């Protein structure tokens, strides 16, 4: 295909978030054709809600056989998630679960006293971060040994996700102010939890350990196997001390039948195990299953560290080694001592990728490293020693964080972990670094004056919008956007299928919460018109009334007039009675509808008159007639039919029901009507030609009788 030469990608990873770092050529994503074959005669595109693009692929007629279709429509959801690591239902659970912590944090931010900002804000952020983290899975360290089975050094746990790993990194470096002093130890814990994630693409200590455990059940004397010693050095290097101690105790010299011949050997093994258990750790506390001595202040830790190292050196020079006959044990244990003594080349040999090497340096070479700058320098050194063969997305993120490059961190978050991640992690970044906060909140004139924080929220909201099960949480994020959130919310609401009752109700609720009355009026109007056109007249009137759409209600009233205005005896009137009842409830919205209600009352009293012959009922009907004729909202086209229907009242036998002024009013109306007849737009009521004449006569008679009465 011409013009399409660059690399191709997976559609799942296609993101549409603007970055500053976009310099590469556009990637080509293949659109799978399911039912049609090329060549295609046409392509048509249409954006649906959110990030959904629908592509109509039209096939040439001669291209295929008779049975083949004329084309198909393919729906593409752009950048909705990272490459399939987390199933869709799980994503939705995360999306729903993160709404409440996000909203709470925003409301705290809005109501915050400026003075308290610095002091305890990070505590709120940490609370938020912990809640979000708990949504991402409940990963316990996968290198925890179980006590029950001595041959199980690794517990089988649910595979952690890189999303959780990324979140914990962000939390560690930006939000958690308390752990700033012992970040190396936190990184160690982090690697213990997530080293398995790197196993898919490169060798890792974790992968070696898993492989060794699988072999372990069949091995008789472990100490004779080189892997045993290798794996222990590796695990020791990355600080999985409990695993190492457990493995050491599998050493054959511990067996009862070895007493008498291997005491020295066993003593050396146990000495190393003891030293490992006593290793000083610069951290306030540790989970119960982990080993080592915790020191929370640096001076204490340094003192303990020196003492510990002295013990190792002493053991290293001990004369007992000469008495150890088992060569593998001697070499293996010595190698482990070299790890603990921080021998750089040994550390490099027993670790597999740069992050493992990095951790080993923290533990044994530079235990007092503090500050991001020195951490970054060390990371660079480790990457130099263990060049990256495969750049895992988590590595990109760590490097970005360590080099304190907010833009890289943002780009890595959004590209590798998706809009959910970047939207929620921005809260951590803004809380953790002034430089990041400035960058996130600075208005970008080139993208219409919004800031980067808002840009990412808008992008995430678009993704939520594209799914029928998540669109209703998009407003939470949109309303946290100062500049363009409401605009996008409006567009989102206008695209809702309002003929579905539940969708309409939900949309109205969202409008109410966000002060978007005019949007909800418009949606109710659309629903009303839909019902009107589809024969549900009652619902139509209800929704148009809710929408306060006077123009259309008046138009509907006129439509009803055509039906009700014919004659008393007309059966069609009955059909409309219920509707008029409905219209009457909020008659103020449209004058024409108010008339209809009065007209219905008049018709009822008139029917009573025709049934019985009491003067009282007739009097009431006559009053209703006068009130109708006086009312300016009574349409002109009704005047004559009203009077014609009332002939019986006008000709009432017992006594005239209308007085002189009332009769004059009716006569005036009749005159107005005969003048209007000459104007364009006059609606003829379609009564018999003698109708006007008989009404005229009846009124004259009534007037005469009224004059005599008064």
């Amino acid at each position, binding site marked *: *295909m011409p*013009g*399409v030469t660059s690399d191709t990608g997976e559609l799942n990873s296609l993101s*549409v978030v*603007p970055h*500053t770092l976009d310099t590469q050529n*556009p*990637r*080509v*994503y293949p*659109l*799978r*054709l*399911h*039912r049609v*074959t*090329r*060549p295609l005669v*046409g*392509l*048509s*595109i*249409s*954006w*649906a*809600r959110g990030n959904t693009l629908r*592509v*109509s*692929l039209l096939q040439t*007629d001669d291209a295929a056989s008779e049975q083949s*279709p004329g*084309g*198909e*429509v*393919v*729906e*593409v959801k752009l950048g909705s998630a990272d490459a399939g690591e987390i199933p869709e239902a799980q994503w939705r659970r995360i999306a729903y679960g993160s709404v409440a912590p996000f909203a709470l944090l925003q409301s705290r931010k809005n109501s915050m006293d400026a003075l308290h900002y610095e002091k305890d804000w990070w505590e709120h952020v940490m609370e938020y971060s912990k809640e979000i983290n708990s949504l991402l899975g409940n990963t316990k360290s996968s290198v925890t040994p179980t006590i029950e089975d001595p041959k199980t050094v690794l517990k089988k746990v649910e595979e952690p996700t890189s999303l959780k790993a990324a979140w914990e990194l962000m939390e560690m470096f930006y939000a958690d102010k308390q752990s700033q002093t012992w970040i190396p130890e936190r990184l160690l814990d982090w690697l213990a939890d997530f080293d398995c994630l790197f196993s898919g693409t490169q060798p890792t200590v974790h992968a070696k350990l898993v492989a060794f455990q699988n072999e372990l059940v069949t091995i008789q004397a472990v100490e004779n196997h080189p892997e045993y010693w290798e794996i222990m050095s590796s695990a020791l290097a990355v600080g999985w001390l409990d695993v190492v101690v457990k493995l050491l105790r599998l050493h054959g010299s511990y067996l009862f039948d070895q007493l008498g011949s291997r005491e020295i050997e066993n003593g050396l093994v146990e000495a190393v195990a003891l030293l490992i258990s006593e290793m000083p750790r610069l951290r306030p506390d540790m989970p119960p299953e982990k080993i080592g001595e915790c020191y929370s202040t640096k001076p204490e830790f340094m003192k303990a560290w020196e003492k510990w190292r002295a013990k190792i050196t002493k053991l290293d020079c001990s004369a007992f080694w000469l008495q150890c006959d088992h060569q593998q044990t001697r070499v293996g244990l010595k190698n482990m001592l070299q790890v603990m003594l921080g021998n750089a080349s040994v550390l490099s040999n027993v670790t597999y990728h740069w992050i493992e090497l990095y951790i080993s340096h923290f533990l044994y070479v530079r235990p007092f490293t503090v500050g991001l700058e020195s951490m970054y320098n060390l990371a660079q050194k480790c990457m130099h020693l263990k060049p990256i063969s495969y750049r895992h997305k988590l590595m990109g993120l760590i490097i970005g964080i360590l080099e304190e490059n907010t833009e890289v961190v943002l780009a890595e978050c959004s590209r590798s972990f998706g809009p959910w991640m970047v939207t929620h992690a921005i809260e951590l970044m803004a809380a953790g670094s002034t430089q990041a906060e400035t960058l996130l909140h600075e208005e970008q004139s*080139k993208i*219409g004056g919004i800031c980067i924080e808002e840009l990412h929220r808008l992008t995430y909201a*678009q993704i939520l*919008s594209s799914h*029928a099960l998540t669109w209703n949480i998009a407003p939470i994020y949109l309303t946290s956007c100062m500049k*363009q959130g*409401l*605009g*996008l919310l409006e567009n989102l609401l206008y*695209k809702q*299928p309002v003929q*579905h009752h*539940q969708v309409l109700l939900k949309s109205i609720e969202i409008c109410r919460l966000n002060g978007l009355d005019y949007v909800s009026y*418009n949606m109710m109007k*659309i629903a009303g*018109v*839909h019902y009107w*056109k589809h*024969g549900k007249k009652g619902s139509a009137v209800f929704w148009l009334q809710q929408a306060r759409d006077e123009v*259309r209600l008046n*138009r*509907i009233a006129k*439509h009803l007039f055509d039906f009700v205005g014919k004659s008393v005896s007309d059966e069609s009137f009955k059909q409309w009675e219920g509707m008029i009842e409905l219209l009457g409830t909020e008659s103020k919205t449209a004058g024409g509808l108010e008339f209809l209600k009065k007209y219905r009352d008049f018709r009822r009293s008139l029917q009573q008159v025709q049934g019985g012959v009491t003067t009282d009922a007739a009097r009431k009907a006559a009053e209703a007639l006068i009130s109708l004729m006086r009312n300016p909202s009574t349409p002109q086209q009704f005047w004559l039919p009203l009077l014609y229907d009332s002939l019986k009242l006008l000709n009432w036998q017992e006594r005239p029901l209308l007085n002189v002024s009332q009769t004059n009013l009716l006569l005036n109306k009749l005159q107005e009507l005969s003048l209007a007849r000459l104007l364009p737009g006059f609606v003829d009521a379609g009564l018999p030609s003698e109708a006007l004449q008989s009404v005229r006569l009846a009124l004259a008679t009534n007037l005469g009788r009224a004059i005599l009465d008064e």
Partner: protein
Amino acid sequence: MDKSILTLDKGTRCTAWNYSGQRLAAGLLDGSLLIYDSTDPASSTFISTSRFKVQESSILKVVWVPPEYGDAVACISADGTLSLWEEVNEDTEGHHWKLCKCFDRNTSQVLDIQFGDAQTCLKLVAAYSDGQIKVYELLDTLELEKWQLQAEFQNVIDLVSNFGNASCLSASVSWNPQRSELQQSSFVLGFSSNVPALNSPKVWEFDLDHQRWLPVAELSLPEDKTDQVSAVAWAPNIGRPYELIAVATQKGISIWRLGSNPDADGRLSAQKLATLSGHDSEVWEMDWDMSGTTLATTGSDGVVRLWQSNLNGVWHEQAVLAPAS
């Protein structure tokens, strides 16, 4: 993630989704129109629910009427006629599609149409093959039968000149998608014709005081004024202080920034932000996403291209979606 959601009937020539993306209208070579519906808002499987004959000749374009006026479509046929069809439920016949209006056609053909101004008084802009623009107004909010010709003019800045025998191959109209009743309604229109002056896209705005349409901006550089325009698309604006309009000519796709404050002559400032080349030849369609940040285009090279501005305001091609065989 891509998935096939609908199979189109044989002979489909054009498709159009309604406002909510729940219905698709497809125009066929034999002049039939098909409607596909999804059963509930959460599902994305669509089935054909109606089929009816609109014209004897092929349908070239289908446009949905704004939902405030019901479920209705306008169809442009190959013979240049324009007709309006509406789905109604009448007591006697149940759900069905009926012809509401067939617009008079004299010698010239309808090339493109778009509906606008749905909030106040629905308008329909039609571009004809003789270079005329006609604006129709709906007289009755509940009936799609009654239309009135509100204005008729040519796509030229200089209103006195008149090009009698123009012959246009195609045209493209796009309304300003804003919904505010406070702002005057406006649209952009460009032609592909043998009369250079008609071609360049002009932004037309209704002047309430004088009750007429005025050209308020021209979206072409002096050296490109005669370029034939294949498509225009006005971006939704969710809060930018300016408007964005995409214009496609044979030279590529250009993105224009339109200021919002008129100068003393009532003209709006127009600035070309970018020229993008990608589709080797003709651009068929352009569509902005609902935030007005990503532009999708298709063209005769048979691929979909996505365009976006980065944070530095530099427009670039973000991705290509290529149908794989």
